[in-house]
């Protein structure tokens, strides 16, 4: 085995190693600590990119911990599927790359942003834990392991949301998130346990090949569905999201966005790959569509009237997740019917995955811009800001790009993915693209408000001495801006080489099973 075969293990191992080396490295001085922080984030990014190269232009990667085959064969000839395995196909690799990019940008940003605060060791360790948890969710091929990674990322994010523990709001946000999250985690465990009880396995591919339709399976899919929808912030369960996003340190918020993306990955993986016999063409797809529409509309309605910048963006996250749920729901309704798939199903899935990549990049950029404003002015209240474009030209420029992209203004990437979602959801019902377009208009309206309130207008006396954010913060934002511009300029290349492959990998459940189980 050469090093290439071990890449999936490195994907989780590198951030975990970073987390546990932190207490030692953190006391060696500022320069070494910062170098260590950037180095490990960058190595994680490189690993995810090389996994992407191997998977997009090759076969899915399967990595079994401590063995060659995932089943343990006894001398008597019986074989038990007991080993833990990682399985990364094009769909998982896409999300892993998004997470690693956001983690790298957040690391660059945090170096300057957190410079004047203490508690670096804890911050760094939790940051790497959060990255490891989110990457593990995208890499694992085992449901119980998935639960463990969900919990790793949850516990790390509780700690990071409450990082500024002198602020009552931060503790409150963390507690509310934790309360619902713990109920959710236990329900997820009940679901996984029930599947184990019936099918004697927690390996996703093995479960998928054995899955039948039945009442137990329906209850289980409902449990897992709701838990992961809660984690990615779908409508009736979204209330933790603006609280947590607003109160976490900004470098972390950028990573929390991608953790919700990892939960979205899990949700879609469960619906498409583990329960295709129940979810395809049935109620599950419609539930996804309805929840998606509600998240889009109510999320943006709440965002329009907010006047605290990070809270406003937190509500926008809900409406953006709604777009992806809608698109993948349309794909799920079409899945199973070959003609529908070719007519609009693949377009919907490609659009949804494109939007997921876009969302995690421009949303992270927007949060970093908000953090840069907070760093410069010391307030998150839009009522108090004003006229900052003169003092902070770089932040302004990058904010404009990100805001235009999230509002779906052509020629930016946000428009392309939204356009694919409009066209494909129109085939199901015309009301769906109508809701999506109203949402898009309201998104533009609220970002016009943010732009007008924070950057335009006369200079305020309090902010005459405000200076541009330091270099490392701008570097973190620049990484995401470059990614946004690349997605803007080459949408056809990204679509045909990445999103289409991811959509095909997702729709082709048999290939997912075959990669682990061999020729069944």
């Amino acid at each position, binding site marked *: 085995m050469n090093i290439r075969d071990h890449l999936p293990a490195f994907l989780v191992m590198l951030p975990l190693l970073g987390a546990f080396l932190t207490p030692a490295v953190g006391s060696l001085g500022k320069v070494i600590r910062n170098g260590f922080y950037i180095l490990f984030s960058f190595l994680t990014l490189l690993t995810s990119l090389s996994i992407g190269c191997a998977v997009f232009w090759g076969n899915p990667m399967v990595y079994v911990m401590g063995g060659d085959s995932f089943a343990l064969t006894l001398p008597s000839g019986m074989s038990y599927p007991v080993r833990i395995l990682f399985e990364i196909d094009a769909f998982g690799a896409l999300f892993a790359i998004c997470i690693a990019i956001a983690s790298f940008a957040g690391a660059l940003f945090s170096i300057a942003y957190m410079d004047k605060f203490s508690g670096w060791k804890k911050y760094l360790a939790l940051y790497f834990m959060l990255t490891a948890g989110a990457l593990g969710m995208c890499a694992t091929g085992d449901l119980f392991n998935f639960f463990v990674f969900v*919990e790793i990322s949850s*516990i790390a994010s*509780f*700690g990071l949301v409450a990082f500024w523990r002198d602020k009552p709001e931060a*503790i409150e946000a963390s*507690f509310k998130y*934790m309360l619902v999250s713990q109920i959710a985690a236990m329900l997820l465990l009940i679901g996984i*346990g029930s599947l*184990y009880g019936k099918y*004697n396995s927690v390996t996703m591919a093995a479960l998928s090949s054995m899955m039948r339709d039945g009442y137990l399976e329906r209850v289980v899919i409902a449990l897992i569905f709701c838990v992961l929808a809660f984690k990615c912030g779908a409508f009736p369960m979204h209330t933790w999201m603006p609280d947590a996003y607003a109160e976490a340190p900004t470098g972390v918020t950028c990573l929390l966005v991608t953790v919700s993306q990892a939960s979205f990955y899990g949700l879609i993986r469960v619906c498409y790959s583990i329960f295709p016999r129940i979810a395809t063409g049935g109620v599950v797809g419609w539930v996804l569509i309805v929840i998606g529409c509600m998240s889009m509309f109510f999320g943006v309605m709440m965002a329009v009237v907010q006047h605290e910048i990070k809270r406003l963006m937190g509500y926008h996250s809900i409406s953006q997740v709604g777009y992806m749920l809608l698109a993948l729901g349309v794909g799920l309704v079409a899945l199973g019917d070959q003609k529908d798939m070719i007519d609009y199903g693949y377009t919907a899935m490609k659009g949804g995955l494109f939007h997921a990549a876009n969302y995690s990049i421009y949303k992270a950029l927007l949060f970093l811009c908000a953090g840069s404003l907070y760093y410069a002015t010391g307030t998150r209240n839009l009522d108090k800001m004003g006229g900052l474009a003169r003092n902070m030209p770089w932040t302004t420029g990058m904010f404009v790009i990100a805001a235009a992209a999230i509002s779906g203004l052509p020629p930016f990437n946000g428009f392309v993915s939204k356009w694919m979602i409009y066209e494909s959801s129109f085939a199901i019902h015309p009301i769906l693209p109508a809701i999506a377009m109203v949402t898009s208009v309201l998104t533009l309206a609220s970002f016009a408000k943010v732009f007008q309130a924070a950057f335009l207008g006369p200079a305020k006396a309090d902010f005459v001495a405000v200076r541009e954010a330091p270099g490392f913060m701008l570097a973190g934002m620049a990484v995401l801006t470059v990614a946004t511009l690349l997605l803007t300029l080459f949408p056809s290349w990204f679509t045909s080489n990445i999103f289409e492959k991811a959509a095909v990998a997702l729709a082709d459940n048999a290939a997912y099973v075959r990669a682990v189980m061999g020729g069944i």
Partner: protein
Amino acid sequence: MTDSIVSALDTLGNSAYVVVALLILMALYTMLTQKNLIKICVSIAILGSSVNMFLVLLGYRDGGEIPIYFLQGENQAMVLPTPQCLTLTAIVIALATTALMLSLIILLHKHYGTLDIDEIRRLRG
């Protein structure tokens, strides 16, 4: 003593699962109706324990033994150790979250001076 418990379980059949369901409902009921943060934390711990009990029950096999023989033993009914492993992991995770939750409650009490969940609502709207 052990034999009598096993035979009692046999006669009860699946009723152990009923206990699990009752515990889960109890925990959910407490969580939704109680206003005291400590009581809510206790209810989450109960929920965690009932789920662990569920996992252990899944691995229960009547008359089964631990599969640690090198040679073929006389008892052929073996218990697959996976559910126990799952339970151990779940217990560790539940411990971590309960500890973190209690520490957050301490901080909340310091900041807000109350343990009533309805008074800790600065973030809304």
